[in-house]
């Protein structure tokens, strides 16, 4: 006799393989729900419990989540673009042109990468303004604000290093101007410019260095700081609740103790 879908699902979820991966097993008790979050390597960064109201649009406008969303879009489209792009002086410009005109969906992927990059900068700023004006940067969340500033800098550096890769006039002069700004650093300025460019001119070495920074070093740093950023939300007592909101202040201390 054929079973229902639910019974097959139950059988699967009770199987040894399933239980070896998802240890918490079946169940809808608070304990099961908490374990499902705690025992997942990705979800354990987040609090096991959140106030239902904090999941609504009004609490955060989802600005942080949307920033993460654009970052994920950028990683996926960026890796796909890397399959057709050579970071070399003779090929870089024509590869980008090929992506626009010869590669199937290349135009779509490149534009998605470009617009997501713009959106990520905008959303990161919007997220910071929201956090600032709500006062969510205050104790005990000061350190997470600092991590956020580092993430903003990484976002801007990713934008800047990606700027050179099309190797057109705009890219060349933008990086000429930008690295000359770096050379205004007292004493070390010219050395910093030399190390950034791998020479005295915006040339093959500079293109390769910016490519490696853009595709490896800065994204890895961003992943690292993102993980700390999310984990700190949990450690700092969950998403920020404004103390002036009714019914919050009285309960706050005991709840905060729990979520720590």
């Amino acid at each position, binding site marked *: 006799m054929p079973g229902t879908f639910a019974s097959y699902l139950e059988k699967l979820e009770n199987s040894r393989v399933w239980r070896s991966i998802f240890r918490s097993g079946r169940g809808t008790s608070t304990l099961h729900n908490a374990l499902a979050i705690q025992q997942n390597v990705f979800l354990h960064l987040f609090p096991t419990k959140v106030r239902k109201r904090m999941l609504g649009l009004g609490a955060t406008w989802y600005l942080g989540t949307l920033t993460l969303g654009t970052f994920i879009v950028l990683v996926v489209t960026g890796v796909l673009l890397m399959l057709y792009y050579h970071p070399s002086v003779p090929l870089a410009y024509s590869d980008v042109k090929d992506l626009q005109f010869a590669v199937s969906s290349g135009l779509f992927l490149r534009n998605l990468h470009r617009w997501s990059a713009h959106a990520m900068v905008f959303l990161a700023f919007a997220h910071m303004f929201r956090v600032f004006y709500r006062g969510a940067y205050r104790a005990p969340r000061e350190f997470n604000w600092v991590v956020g500033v580092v993430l903003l800098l990484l976002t801007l550096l990713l934008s800047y290093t990606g700027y050179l890769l099309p190797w057109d006039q705009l890219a060349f*002069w933008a990086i*000429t*101007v930008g*690295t*000359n*700004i770096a050379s205004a650093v007292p004493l070390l300025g010219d050395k910093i410019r*030399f*190390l950034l460019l*791998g*020479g*005295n*001119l915006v*040339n*093959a*070495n500079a293109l390769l260095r910016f490519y490696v920074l853009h595709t490896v070093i800065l994204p890895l740093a961003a992943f690292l700081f993102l993980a700390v950023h999310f984990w700190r939300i949990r450690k700092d007592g969950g998403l920020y609740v404004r103390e002036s909101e009714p019914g919050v202040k009285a309960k706050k201390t005991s709840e905060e103790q729990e979520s720590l």
Partner: protein
Amino acid sequence: MLDRRDFFTKLGLGSLGIAAAGTIAFYYQYLSPNVLFEPSPIVNAGRAENYTVGSVTLDVNSAIYLVRIADGYFSLSAICTHLGCMTAWKPELNQIACPCHGSRFDREGKKIEGPAPKPLPWLKTWISDDGDLMVDRSAIIPPFQFLRV
């Protein structure tokens, strides 16, 4: 009195410190290229008599201006002293203008307006044995020391 445990702790931390300093030096040296495939600073600007009196000629490949005046020649760097963009000669204005942030210079390199902090540098200019005008882009000379002919 330093006991044995302190001694080894200090020895260990000291060695780690030396290793860390060595690592920084290693990275710095590795990231500074020793050989660069960059063009020579010395530019051959062609026959001197090809430049007519009163002309300002930009060579976009070497980013220099060659200026022919009544009694000689001089050359200026075409790289804006603000943030390194290449300037252009505007004959209708009798000025050198930077497209990036709007600095303007006269034909002697003196700033007229804009954010450029310094005038355009004068470059060492001479005539080779073959009669070609030569410019050394790495040799900045004081202004108004032009090549008299």
